[in-house]
């Protein structure tokens, strides 16, 4: 069974962490993943840095620019994590943009990440309908999950459609209409949106992302949802405290 599918069967609320591969230092990737697992994180999103990350706010943009300057690339990342399954058993997801995947070759990309032991992909600018029509088979053939984003503007009909395709993975619920790292805490509007989605009683678990940065926002986001993803706040912590600060950061969220 896909590791994402089995992880989601656990009864607890899940904490997932995003980091940009190659940041702060090129060779930090494996160390960061190990420390996240040791600190009790449930799932990790490995960010494949891109020159033009449209869906991301300044924190992730800057970490991506730095990572690329450090020499990160698709092939470099795959090389760094080729033996990752020797030490890591939590689900691993690659989050990136479609163009680098396209240049690598979509099917080849799926094949190679699946060999490494990656469980799913989040490609924000690979549209759901395009994925369904052209690339679902590539994902299915290599037992990879496509994680689809929804936003407060996504229609109920579309959410129900996405729900049918996401049952043994999860739906990535973007907390508000924004790029990553934009908000300062959740407002009434977002909390209402969380309630609304809960009222749909979807078959697929939901994990909330964008704007989760501390213990309070984590608990707000996971009141109904199965889990939450932290990105920008973690990258800021990495920048300030380095890999040695990872354990404390994770503790502060779970507290």
């Amino acid at each position, binding site marked *: 069974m896909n590791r994402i599918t089995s992880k989601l069967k656990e009864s607890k609320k899940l904490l997932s962490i995003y980091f940009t591969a190659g940041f702060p230092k090129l060779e930090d990737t494996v160390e960061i993943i190990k420390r996240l697992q040791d600190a009790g994180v449930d799932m990790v999103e490995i960010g494949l840095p891109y*020159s033009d*990350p*449209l869906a991301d706010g300044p924190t992730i943009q800057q970490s991506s620019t730095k990572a690329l300057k450090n020499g990160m690339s698709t092939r470099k990342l795959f090389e760094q994590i080729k033996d990752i399954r020797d030490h890591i058993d939590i689900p691993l997801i690659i989050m990136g*943009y479609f163009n680098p995947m396209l240049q690598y070759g979509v099917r080849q990309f799926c094949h190679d990440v699946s060999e490494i032991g990656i469980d799913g992909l989040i490609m924000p600018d690979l549209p759901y309908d395009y994925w369904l029509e052209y690339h679902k088979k590539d994902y299915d053939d290599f037992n990879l999950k496509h994680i689809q*984003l929804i936003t407060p503007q*996504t229609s109920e009909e579309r959410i129900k459609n996405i729900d049918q395709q996401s049952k043994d993975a999860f739906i990535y619920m973007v907390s508000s209409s924004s*790029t990553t790292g934009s908000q300062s805490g959740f407002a009434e509007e977002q909390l209402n949106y969380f309630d609304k989605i809960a009222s749909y009683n979807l078959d697929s678990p939901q994990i909330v992302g964008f704007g989760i940065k501390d213990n309070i926002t984590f608990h707000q986001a996971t009141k109904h949802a199965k889990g939450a993803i932290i990105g920008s706040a973690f990258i800021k912590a990495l920048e300030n405290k380095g890999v040695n600060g990872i354990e404390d950061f994770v503790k502060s969220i779970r507290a």
Partner: protein
Amino acid sequence: MKTMNYNVNAKGFYGDFGGAFIPEMLKPNVDELRENYLKITAQKDFQKDFDDLLKDYVGRPTPLYFSKRLSEKYQTQIYLKREDLCHTGAHKINNTIGQILLAQRLGKKRIIAETGAGQHGVATATVCALMGMPCVIYMGAIDIKRQAPNVARMKMLGAKVVPAESGSKTLKDATNEAIRDWINHPEDTHYIIGSVVGPHPFPDMVARFQSVISQEVKTQVKAQSRKEKPDYIMACVGGGSNAAGIYYDFLNDKDVKIIAVEAAGKGVSTGESAATSQLGKQGIIHGSKTLLMQSDDGQITEPYSISAGLDYPGIGPMHAHLYASKRSEFISITDDEAMQAGWQLSQLEGIIPAIETAHAFAVFEHRQFQPDDVVVVNLSGRGDKDLQTYMDYFKL
């Protein structure tokens, strides 16, 4: 023989190129636009407002001018489509007029745009002043320094100019920032994109607004030349809007040959170039599948040209299709060739062209035409904005 269609299909593709590769966060905005742009632009009152403004405010129709001295020099019949005479000095305003009328009908309250050289920023700030709408222009921090007069014009027109500090701090990053702004304002804002780029329906919508150029050329050539239609249509291509506009009505008429002129910068193989058709590979930029300059790893690279309006790392998907299907001939022109052609046009015809436009005129040094060929060149903009560059280059 299979007949080619050079217009966009229902899914937003020109052959293999185009589409809308956008994050889910952008979908409501793009869907709203796609579902409404054809409906709204077909309405009588929209068309009346658009035509009236183009006539009385922009100054259309722009003349088609027979360039006697260039024609003598190059032994062919050269006609200039005078988009440089449009209000604000370039074709860009045809598009911004169309889009602001559309934005109003969509109930939008706020306008954003990207700009490179500042021409599109000025054209957007102008229509926002005209309609009394707040306007935010994203411009690369480096371009803000290079294009000070246009920054001042935008400010004087009431726009807020926001520096794009991300990535390489030029046009592509300004476009990213505008798209991010749009993601963060999904309801009240319209994004007036500046060329035939971006996710569907932008390339088609902008091409339609610019197509007024080819409609005019069609009647003007018939009335003014000995031919029924032009033999050649030529334009510079940054994103490709002035080119799309002057090709539009001729796309499906094979008798009319089309030439696209790209910026070679210091030379196609010098590493400092913007000749996307020569250096680009298929990929995705700003939500569109097209040809773009990128590394083997799929990272978008920074182009170079002496003209800020041509250094975009991609070309519009229509142009990628025209290239791939060989409907259009692509020629690349270096900085030096363009500067010399700009000098020559000034001296022979008393017209100082934008440096973007000057690239198109350099083609006559490369390519022979028949004496009776009618060659129409899109004179997309005037050179006032480029005086500093001309001054530095020619030590004026």
